[in-house]
C-alpha cells in the first residue's frame, strides 16, 4: 500500500488523478477496512492537514453563504457560533456523531462522501439546500447535495474529484433548522431513522416555507416532497402534515436495528419533532444543540435523572 500526506491541494488532486483515494479522519475508511467491509485502497492520500480544507466562513462573503471546508471536524461544526446561529440543524447532526473522539477525527467531507443513508449531516444539509464544491486536476464544479448521493456508498462524483467544501445558502429572517434522530443509545450509535427540517415563519407565526429531509429510510437521504401543503399552517398542524408525508414517502428496509414498519412510523415522529423545533428556533427561542439532548428525544437526557449528582447522590 502507498500512503502520501498531501502537501498542497494541487498535490492531492494530482495523486487522485493517478488513482489515489483520499483519507481524512479515516473513521469510515479505516474502520470499514478493519471490519472487512472493503480493504484499504492500494494508494491513499491524506488530506487532513490541508489548511485550505479546514476553515469555516460563517457568511462574510457578498452572498452571505456559509462555506465549510471538507476537512472541518464534527466537533468544530458542533461548537461553531456561526453554524449554531445560522444552521443549528447541522450542528445538531454533527454533535450526535459517535463519541468525542469520532467527532474530533471525523470530517463533514468524509461523512457526505461516504454516502451512508444513515449519515447525520446529510438531512440537515439537504434541508438547507446545500451544495458541494468538488475539484480535480480538470477543474472544479458545484453540485447540489440533492444530486450527490446515488445509493449506499455511491456518489455522482468521479473518483479523481475531491470534495473541497460544502456551501450553505444563508437562511433568511425568521428561518431556522433542526435535526433529530431516533437512537437506541446516546452514543456510538447511528440513526435508526432521522429527520432534518428548515422552516421560515411568516409574521403571524404560520409556516411560510419548509424543507424536510429524512435519514435511513431509503438508499440515500431523501427530501420530503409536496411541502407546499404546509404553507400557511400553524407549526403544530404543519408538523402533523409533515409526519404523514414523511411516513408515506419513506421506503425503509428491515434490518436488525428496526423493521420497515417501525422505521416508516418513527420517521414521521422524528420529522414532526424536527419541524416543531425548527419553528421554535425560527420564532427566536433558543433550543440548545443537539435537540436530541435538550428536548429529550431518545435515551435519557439532562434534567431527567442525573443533573449534577453522581449515582450516590453526591453533588459535584
Amino acid at each position, binding site marked *: 500500500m502507498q500512503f502520501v500526506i498531501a502537501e498542497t491541494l494541487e498535490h492531492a488532486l494530482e495523486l487522485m488523478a493517478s488513482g489515489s483515494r483520499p483519507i481524512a479522519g479515516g473513521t469510515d475508511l479505516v474502520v470499514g477496512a478493519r*471490519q472487512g467491509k472493503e480493504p484499504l485502497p492500494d494508494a491513499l492520500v491524506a488530506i487532513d492537514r490541508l489548511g485550505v480544507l479546514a476553515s469555516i466562513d460563517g457568511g462574510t462573503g457578498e452572498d452571505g453563504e456559509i462555506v465549510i471546508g471538507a476537512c472541518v471536524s464534527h466537533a468544530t461544526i458542533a461548537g461553531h457560533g456561526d453554524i449554531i446561529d445560522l444552521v443549528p440543524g447541522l450542528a445538531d447532526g454533527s454533535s450526535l456523531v459517535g463519541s468525542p*473522539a469520532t467527532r474530533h477525527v471525523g470530517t463533514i467531507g468524509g461523512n457526505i462522501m461516504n454516502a451512508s443513508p444513515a449519515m447525520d449531516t446529510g438531512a440537515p444539509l439537504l434541508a438547507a439546500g446545500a451544495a458541494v464544491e468538488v475539484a480535480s486536476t480538470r477543474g472544479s464544479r458545484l453540485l447540489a447535495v440533492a444530486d450527490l448521493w446515488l445509493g449506499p456508498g455511491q456518489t455522482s462524483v468521479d473518483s479523481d474529484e475531491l470534495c473541497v467544501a460544502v456551501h450553505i445558502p444563508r437562511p433568511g429572517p425568521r428561518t431556522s433548522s433542526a435535526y433529530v434522530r431516533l437512537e437506541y443509545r*446516546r452514543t456510538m450509535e447511528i440513526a435508526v431513522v432521522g429527520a432534518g427540517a428548515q422552516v421560515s415563519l411568516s409574521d403571524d407565526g404560520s409556516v411560510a416555507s419548509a424543507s424536510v429531509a429524512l435519514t435511513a429510510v431509503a438508499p440515500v437521504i431523501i427530501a420530503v416532497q409536496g411541502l407546499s401543503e404546509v404553507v400557511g399552517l400553524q407549526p403544530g398542524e404543519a408538523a402533523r402534515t409533515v409526519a404523514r408525508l414523511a411516513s408515506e414517502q419513506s421506503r425503509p428496509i428491515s434490518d436488525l436495528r428496526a423493521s420497515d414498519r417501525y422505521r416508516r412510523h418513527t420517521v414521521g415522529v422524528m420529522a414532526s419533532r424536527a419541524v416543531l423545533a425548527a419553528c421554535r428556533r425560527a420564532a427566536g427561542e433558543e433550543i440548545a444543540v443537539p435537540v436530541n439532548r435538550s428536548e429529550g428525544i431518545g435515551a435519557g437526557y439532562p434534567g431527567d435523572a442525573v443533573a449534577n449528582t453522581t449515582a450516590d447522590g453526591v453533588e459535584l
Partner: protein
Amino acid sequence: MKINLNVNGVTFPVDIEPDRSLSGVLRNEIGLTGTKEGCDDCECGACMVLLDGHPVNSCSYLAVQTDGRQVTTVEGLADADGLAPLQQAMLDAGGVQCGFCTPGMLMSATALLSENPEPTVEEIRIGLSGNLCRCTGYAKIIEAVGSDAPST
C-alpha cells in the same frame, strides 16, 4: 514507510507498513503497552490516546497519519513527581477495578478537562461516552473526574 512518531515528547523513528494501526505500533514497535486493545474495532475506547491534544481511537487510526504530530499515551500522564492528579483521583474514588479500561478513560478525561476544567456530570458522561467499562458501573469513574475537575 519511515515516519517520526512523537510520543509523550519523545521522537521515535519507525519503519512500518502504512496499514498498521497506531495502537499496534505503540504497543509492538515502541513497547508502550499502557494503551490497550479491547475490541480493536473502534467501539470500546480502551485504545484512546491523544493526538495533538484530542482523543482518537488508536486501534482504528493509521500510525502513518500521525507522522510529525504529538501523540500522548497514558504513560505520558505521570511525571517524575508521581501520578497526575486525575490518576490519583481515579484510585481514591475506586474508579479502577480490573483496570483494562482505565488508560482509555484517563485519556478521554484528560482531553475533557483540558477543554472544560469544571465539567458537569452530564458533560463528564458525554466526554467519556466513547469508553466502555465492564467492571465499575461508571459511577466511581465519573466521581473521580468530577472531583479532580476543580484542582486541574
